[in-house]
């Protein structure tokens, strides 16, 4: 539990982490919340290729998420 807090977009594929904070405007935050990304959610990075959106896992679900957005999700590496 003592990992660094860093943007999700910086994690490599295969890493998992816990959401700590959401930055960005209200509309964006609401979208993330609706998709289940809230404080304490466990997420895994399935894919993080340079220049493409990330693919992340939340439980059984898979989300493609733009890099800009992924940089606004602050996570703590697990």
């Amino acid at each position: 539990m003592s990992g660094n807090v860093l943007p999700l977009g910086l994690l490599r594929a295969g890493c998992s982490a816990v959401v700590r904070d959401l930055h960005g405007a209200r509309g964006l935050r609401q979208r993330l919340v609706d998709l289940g990304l809230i404080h304490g959610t466990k997420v895994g990075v399935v894919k993080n290729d340079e220049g493409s959106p990330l693919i992340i896992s939340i439980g059984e679900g898979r989300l493609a998420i733009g890099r800009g957005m992924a940089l606004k999700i602050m996570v703590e590496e697990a």
Partner: protein
Amino acid sequence: MEAAERIKNESKKIVVALAGNPNSGKTTVFNALTGARQHVGNWPGVTVEKKEGHFSSDGKAVQVVDLPGTYSLSAYSEDEAVARNYILFEKPDVVVNIVDATNLERNLYLTIQLLELGANVVIALNMSDELSARQTEVNVNELSRLLAVPVVPTVATRNRGMKELVNSVLLAAGQKGGPLLQVNYGEEMERELAALEKEILSFPVLTGKYASRWLAVKLLESDEALLAELKNYPGLDRLFARRSEAVKRLEAVWGDDIESMLADRRYGFIGGLAREVVTRRKSAEERISISDRIDRVVTNRYLGIPIFLLTMWAMFQFTFTLGEPLIGWTEELFVWLGEALGSLLAIVGAGELLTSLFKDGIIAGVGSVLVFIPPIFLLFFAISLLEDSGYMARAAYIVDRFMHSLGLHGKSFIPLLLGFGCNTPAIMATRTLENKSDRMITILINPFMSCAARLPVYVLFAGAFFGANQGMVIFSLYLLGIVLAILMGVIFKRFLFKGETSHFVMELPPYRIPTLKSTLIHMWERGSAFIRKAGTIILAVVILVWVLSSLPAGVEYASAESILGRIGSFIAPVFYPAGFGTWEAAAALIFGILAKEVVVGTLAVVYGMGEAGLGSVIAQYWTPLSAYAFMVMTLIYVPCVSSIAAIKRETNSWRWMFFAVGYSLILGWIMAVLVYQVGTLLGLG
């Protein structure tokens, strides 16, 4: 008496709304429940598609309303607002909430909101067959007990559990109004909620309409849509004042994000619920599902694009290779039909005029368009297959990098691909794009995707002039459309819709093997519009063209002296530089605006030839070069009427509609002239 009977039946009708996340299998449940008894329309005032259907069971008529797929009911998007308002104000007897069993936590977020809203919910725990592959179990009885609603496991794709679902719905319809689910939002929040609720209960106008606790929660959430709605009620000042005080107090404790706090609590509640009912024999990290394995290949950095291109190639091969013999057969059918009708009319002694109307007009005109129904359906079959299998979302992911160079992102790809089928629903599909400028650009460039209606024109002209190379020629037109879309997209982004960054979030649904039934239903939903079009607008236009070709009385049929000939001759000079300055071509282009297939239909009528003989006739009036220029014109100039209407609705602006019409007309003319003039210079004329 009949009317009284009907009213009695009406009053007995049970109204069921389907709610669920996108990709939860909601559409499949809808299809399984209603079969082909469906009706597609629009929700009033918005452009969100409204699907309704009905069935009956145990002598009870049930009306099923398919609400838009949403993750929540926060009313941030049109879809969510539609779903929420329907449940709030139309008060359906039962709301069937389709929950993806493999993704329980996320799906229950919507469930909780439905329950808070006071809906009479029955849960369809869908795709429950996929749980065992994931070594996961969901305790259905426990879930039902904890949420205090019926839960029915279903596998809609295989029609399993549907009977039980129907029974539960009928049962639930009779016993409305159980206790409302209450998520505990924590001490401070609950204190404020209780105070607000008390306040709300003193306003009968509100309690008649809203569940009081739900309203209290929404007030604390500062739900903008709801606050705007409440402004319509007079005398709520005291309530608003209380709300502001409560928000201020809570902000002092929680910061400015009460909404996230509430969402936190809801997810907390769901997490607890899931721990009670879900047993996983392996942790999420250990499980590598088949979907992930496929994704490793399909979204691979190096393999992704070749696989994508191969898929697109396979889709068009499927459409054309299989479609070509089918076109031939349908052609023969119409030739036979025309002859049979001709002899029939001769037997009954119909006059020359009537015979001409049927033979030159209706059979030639409508028939020449209907001939292309097979490839159109094959194309829609392929598109439905891509969507139902889950590949469409991957394709959007793969092309995202490329789309970024156009200033769009991957999600815009889906409406563009749908454009190959028909631009009208494709333009409506841009609704999934959250960003205004992305949406505008995707709408404006969509008509350059060669829709199925343009295919008849390509096949006719390419077949008549390019023989063995016709496949290449048709392909080049599709490509030209794509290149123009890209170019215009870049220009629009540069000069009209600057700035505005956009977010890209898209669910990647697990891969599924689509069932033949659902793919066929989706194909039919899309493709049948073309048959309907042939029976309505195209039939009407064809008759109009025939009439205009026969008048004034005594004129030679379809000659330059007929009304149509005169109109065409007036416009024709504009197209001299493009090589097709004949009145027939001009008339075809004018009527082609009504629907692009009509270009072929009009030519068939004015030349008095069905599709089978049309090729040899047009070979006398066009050269290969002018034929190509004509196809380019048909591709680019003015979207068809129904696309124009869609552009008006979706952009909600006359200005953008006229812009779309104007710029494509000018661009089409320039391109056609360019093709002809440059071609002539190169000695291709």
